[in-house]
């Protein structure tokens, strides 16, 4: 960098000072685009950048980051809480929100300085955008071109339902569906892409299908108490048949309710479906947050460095960007009062940088651990490939290097509630690397945070009680109060009683049973 670039009035500078305007924004965007597409080889959806005020940012927060959303009190609650935190200065607002849609919409705040806008455009409009467009989870599970249409459909549908059936009724169903949202995703099957026309047609089909099959299942289901052994055998066979017809066992609770709940009205079914779709839309984001933020942070860092090297931004702007960059990737130690888990930005960014280092200047250790990429001299290609084909869990399992484990000084603690103290069982040494890597990957595995719950059976011979099971791994049971409340919601949608059995995954022994009687249907 020549000293000339620090002088004011340098012709190459894209901007000076902190004020921004639309022309500057456009100029900066073009400069960033050149680097992002040309040098980093990113591949992005068309960008749409929207400038909003802090108040609008709070609004966007409240509707879980989506540009339009149906009405529900819980969004109001979220707004109220964010507002308190923000006004008290406990929490700054995010500088941007970016939406996985095509065109990719990035919200940026008018309060940001020009340097911050530069950072934000690089981070959101290129980093996140590239990840959304290329990561296999997003490609498989979400349809970027259809989401805005679908949200419009959802919002209008909810509004219409409220007009027809009253806000209270609609809220009752949405409350219940929200409580089960985490259990409203297909984890494995490939979901067909959404589009609005298809949606309507499917709603039609579903109703017709349901009318044809509904009676059948419920009629054949009325099986008397078995009297003779043959009867019992037959009834067991019939029960198996019923389970098959109902598609049990099923882990997507919302899906099951939408298809099979006996007493839901069509509009209630559609509400359940809307909650399920939104949940499914967010499912990839939950599984790839660390990578997604890592990718975006890495991209803005690389771009800011290049802009500065070429004298396109001055030292002041670069320092401002770096200041905010370092506070974003700050990782306090476990015994720091500010510690609140691993910072996904910090870990993600560090891992991306580390992959680049391994590609460009590998050590002997790296060559041993990552023979396929060490020293290949193509950091961006390697990263693009990683961004496309991994999620947090598999990315850690594949790319967490001993170097990084040492850098973060990671260690593993084992906590058995039977024992009187926790035990450190792996640290950043030769014996611990693999242990820590696997444990960290498990930490990012969503399936391990969310209880493993399935709908197992419906007692059609008796009171139509829905039977669920929770596979208890490592002795971690369900939280008592929350579970009871959720089961009440579930029972409202199902219209009959609910039984949830907690079954130890190893011994198949029922540890605990939660039961909720049929809820009165309003």
């Amino acid at each position, binding site marked *: 960098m020549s000293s000339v670039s620090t002088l004011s009035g340098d012709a190459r500078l894209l901007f000076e000072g902190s004020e921004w305007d639309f022309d500057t924004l456009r100029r900066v965007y073009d400069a960033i685009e050149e680097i992002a597409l040309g040098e980093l080889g990113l591949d992005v959806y068309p960008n749409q950048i929207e400038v909003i005020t802090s108040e609008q940012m709070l609004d966007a927060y409240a509707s879980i980051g989506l540009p339009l959303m149906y009405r529900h009190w819980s969004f109001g609650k979220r707004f109220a809480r964010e507002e308190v935190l923000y006004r008290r200065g406990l929490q700054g607002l995010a500088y941007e929100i970016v939406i996985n849609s095509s065109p990719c919409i990035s919200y940026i705040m008018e309060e940001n300085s020009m340097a911050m806008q530069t950072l934000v455009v690089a981070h959101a409009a290129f980093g996140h955008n590239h990840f959304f467009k290329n990561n296999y989870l997003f490609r498989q599970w979400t349809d970027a071109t259809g989401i805005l249409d679908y949200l419009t459909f959802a919002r209008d549908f909810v509004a219409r339902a409220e007009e027809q059936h009253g806000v209270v009724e609609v809220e009752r169903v949405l409350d219940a569906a929200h409580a089960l949202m985490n259990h409203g995703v297909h984890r494995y099957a490939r979901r067909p892409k959404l589009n609005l026309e298809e949606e309507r047609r499917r709603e039609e089909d579903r109703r017709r299908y349901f009318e044809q099959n509904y009676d059948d299942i419920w009629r054949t289901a009325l099986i008397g108490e078995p009297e003779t052994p043959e009867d019992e055998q037959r009834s067991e066979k019939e029960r198996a048949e019923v389970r098959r017809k109902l598609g049990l066992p099923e882990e997507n609770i919302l899906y099951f309710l939408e298809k099979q709940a006996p007493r839901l009205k069509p509009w209630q079914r559609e509400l359940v479906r809307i909650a399920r779709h939104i949940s499914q839309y967010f499912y990839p984001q939950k599984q790839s947050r660390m990578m997604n933020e890592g990718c975006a942070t890495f991209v803005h860092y690389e771009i800011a460095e290049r802009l500065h090297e070429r004298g396109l931004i001055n030292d002041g702007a670069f320092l401002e960007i770096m200041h905010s960059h370092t506070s974003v990737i700050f990782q306090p130690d476990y015994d720091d009062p500010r510690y609140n888990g691993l910072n996904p930005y910090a870990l993600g960014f560090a891992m991306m940088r580390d992959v680049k280092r391994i590609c460009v200047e590998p050590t002997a250790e790296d060559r041993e651990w990552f023979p396929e990429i060490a020293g290949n001299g193509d950091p961006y290609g390697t990263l693009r490939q990683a961004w496309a084909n991994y999620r947090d869990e598999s990315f850690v399992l594949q790319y967490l290097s001993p170097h990084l484990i040492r850098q973060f000084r990671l260690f593993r603690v084992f906590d058995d509630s039977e024992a009187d103290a926790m035990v450190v069982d792996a640290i950043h040494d030769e014996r611990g690397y693999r242990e820590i890597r696997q444990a960290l990957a498990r930490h990012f595995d969503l399936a391990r945070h969310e209880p493993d719950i399935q709908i197992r059976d419906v007692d059609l011979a008796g009171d139509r009680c829905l039977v669920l099971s929770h596979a208890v791994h490592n002795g971690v049971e369900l939280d008592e109060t*929350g579970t009871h409340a959720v089961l009440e919601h579930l029972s409202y949608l199902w219209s009959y009683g609910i039984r949830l059995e907690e079954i130890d995954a190893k011994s198949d022994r029922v540890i605990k049973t939660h039961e909720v009687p049929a809820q009165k249907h309003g």
Partner: protein
Amino acid sequence: MNIIDRRPNPKGKSLANRQRFIDRARGEVRDALADALKRRKLGESVGGEKVSIPTRGITEPTLRPARRGGQREYVVPGNRKFVVGDRIERPQSGDGGARGNASPEDGDEQDAFEFVLSKDEFLDLFFEDLELPDLIKTQLKETEATQLTRAGFSMAGVPSALNVVRTMRNSLARRISLHRPTPSEIEALERQVETARAADDEEGAAQGLHDLALAQKRARRVAYIDPVDVRYNRFERVPKPNTQAVMFCLMDVSGSMTEAMKDLAKRFFLLLHVFLTRRYKHVDIVFIRHTSNAQEVDEDTFFHSRETGGTIVSTALEEMMRVVRARYGPDNWNIYAAQASDGDNYTEDSDRCSQLLGSEILPVTQYFAYIEVGAEATLRHGFPSPPTDLWRTYSQIAEQHANFAMRKVADPTQIFPVFHELFAKQREQA
């Protein structure tokens, strides 16, 4: 690439959701407000209120793993001293080292939910279900106060009330039905005559002239606007119920009132003041304070200045009647009064008060509320103190008059409930 300026978009996209949230938590919010009122210092302006409500009722439950029990593992950064096999005390209250790793969302387990109500939200909730009783004077419903109200149209009226639209509509209908030739039709006939003349078509010209004369005659006969077309706006005088109101605030500031009692009384009036200014645009408020003599004061003096002296309650009542006679004739005004006192009075004065209230004040007031402050504070040795002079006197009045209510207030926590009782909608007549 598109850059869109969304700043001019309508604000408050979340307002509807926020309203729903507050509605949902209404019960909790109301309780929290009553609670907040206790802490509020006198003289603090009524503004946005931070409320903290229990999460019950607004929780969004999820199925999640219990926070304790079973075998768990955590991966944490920042090891400086541990080697494999080291034992670590389990952090108490789950707030120590390994927290946060267990759940990605950090549990979200708050006992109370805190947020800020805007001033409007605060006051709306606060005064919900409250109103001034009998705002419309029953005996005065047929007073001369009237209002002009539109009442259709009439055939006769003053020119200023002419309804042009109606008039022209009638005129047009009449002209069409009576075949009045339009100016363009007459012009066409004139042109026809001229062309016939120019073509030396004598017969045609004569025919044309005949038609033209006929049309002109018709146009003269059928008037453009006829008196039968004309319509006037009609107004009727509708008697208007009387909703002018005045509230008298009477407060004892004598020496027997301790600072605590005065504070209580002031809190009550402050609440009343906010209530009235919020809910009724046209309510006058008169502040009267008294010791052994009474004077009308302004709001600021009433709430903030100190004075001390003996007690003669009737002076305040007399002052009130003086003001009523001077400025607020009962014929035109709804009169309300609220009085706060510790119940102490110059013994000989009680009869005077009773007589003033019974024969002069209550007949002309809509509602008279009396609160006695600090009454419970005198409770000694577990025996209820005997009722004060004023309480005894007023008790008799309360029996005879439905528009008189009395309550005791001993500490700030009771202010809101008492206020609520006194001004609750559909107040049961005592």
